[in-house]
């Protein structure tokens, strides 16, 4: 069965289920949020505020089969594009070796993580990058040869930096975290990840 079919079936079940409880979709969303607020404990750096969604998160909290309205998608991308802060020094390419370490590191921002230590980007969890690392995920596309295929022109550099900074600026409801926008990575770290993707010496482009 295709996912879309099943989601439709599930939605059907939910609709029937809702029949006598008669909870509208919006009511259910509100009730779920209340339920969550009562069911999570603040722990370490993870405060309950993390359950407060911004508009992007709210609009993107839907089954994949439920299509996002064109106008909503455009609004998400516009808002997020406006959030991108490019480095004041104009340099977008850092150190790919540091970028590789950031790409391998999955720590940061969990309730058990030390907030004083820099976060990783955990790129390999979802993307293929270098050929040497066989333990990579497939939630995102392969980025092997990312720079080799695209070159390192100014617009490519700006796109790459911007995509890491705020993925939703280019694809509404992308699964990828907004590393700069949400303060997961520092400016220097984003430069280093950009270098990992674009530097001709990086294993990504070998």
């Amino acid at each position, binding site marked *: 069965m295709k996912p879309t079919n099943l989601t439709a079936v599930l939605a059907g079940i939910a609709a029937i289920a809702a029949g006598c409880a008669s909870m509208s979709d919006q009511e259910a969303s509100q009730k779920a949020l209340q339920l969550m607020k009562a069911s999570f404990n603040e722990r370490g750096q993870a405060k309950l505020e993390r359950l407060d969604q911004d508009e992007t998160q709210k609009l993107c909290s839907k089954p994949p089969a439920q299509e996002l309205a064109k106008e909503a998608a455009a609004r998400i991308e516009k808002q997020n594009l406006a959030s991108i802060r490019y480095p004041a020094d104009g340099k977008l390419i850092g150190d790919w070796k540091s970028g590789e370490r950031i790409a*391998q*590191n*999955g*720590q940061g921002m*969990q309730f*058990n*993580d030390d907030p004083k230590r820099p976060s*990783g980007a*955990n790129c*390999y*969890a979802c993307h293929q990058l270098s050929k040497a690392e*066989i*333990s990579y995920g497939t939630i995102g596309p392969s980025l092997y040869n990312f720079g080799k295929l695209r070159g390192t022109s100014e617009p490519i550099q700006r796109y790459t930096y911007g995509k890491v900074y705020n993925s939703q600026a280019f694809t509404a409801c992308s699964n990828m975290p907004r590393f700069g926008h949400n303060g997961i990575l520092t400016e220097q770290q984003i430069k280093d990840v950009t270098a990992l993707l674009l530097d001709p010496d990086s294993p990504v482009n070998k």
Partner: protein
Amino acid sequence: MNHSRRAVLKTGGGAGVLGLLFAAGIARPGEVFAQGAGLNAFAMKSVPEALRALGAQGPAVSAAIQIKAPEIAENGAVVPIGIESNLPGTESITLLIEKNPQPLAASFSIPAGTEPSVSTRVKIGESSDVYALVKADGKFYMAKKEIKITLGGCGG
């Protein structure tokens, strides 16, 4: 179970115990070898040192020893490894993991009537060669296999 012997083991706690046991006349060299590895071999920090402590320098590489293990382990905390010897007169089977801080992991003595094949699970800190050392008819033989340890999950 020999109680006086256990008391010595308790106070000794690892390296150097073997000499103590010999001195006390509790363990005979033959007995220790019959049980597989000398205790101090477990404390050694490299494969050559461990082999020396086992009295097994320069073992011959043998195709009659098979290491049954996945080439990639999802997690180094538990890596299943089986060792099978087809050498006649196999007396002991010993497992060493090159990159572990203390390479000697386990040693099994195989009495007559027991098949020269054991399986267990070990911790491997990073991708490493593992060695199976077999003593058969008084001589030492060895086989090698590389095991890759991958990073898993969300990394947290």
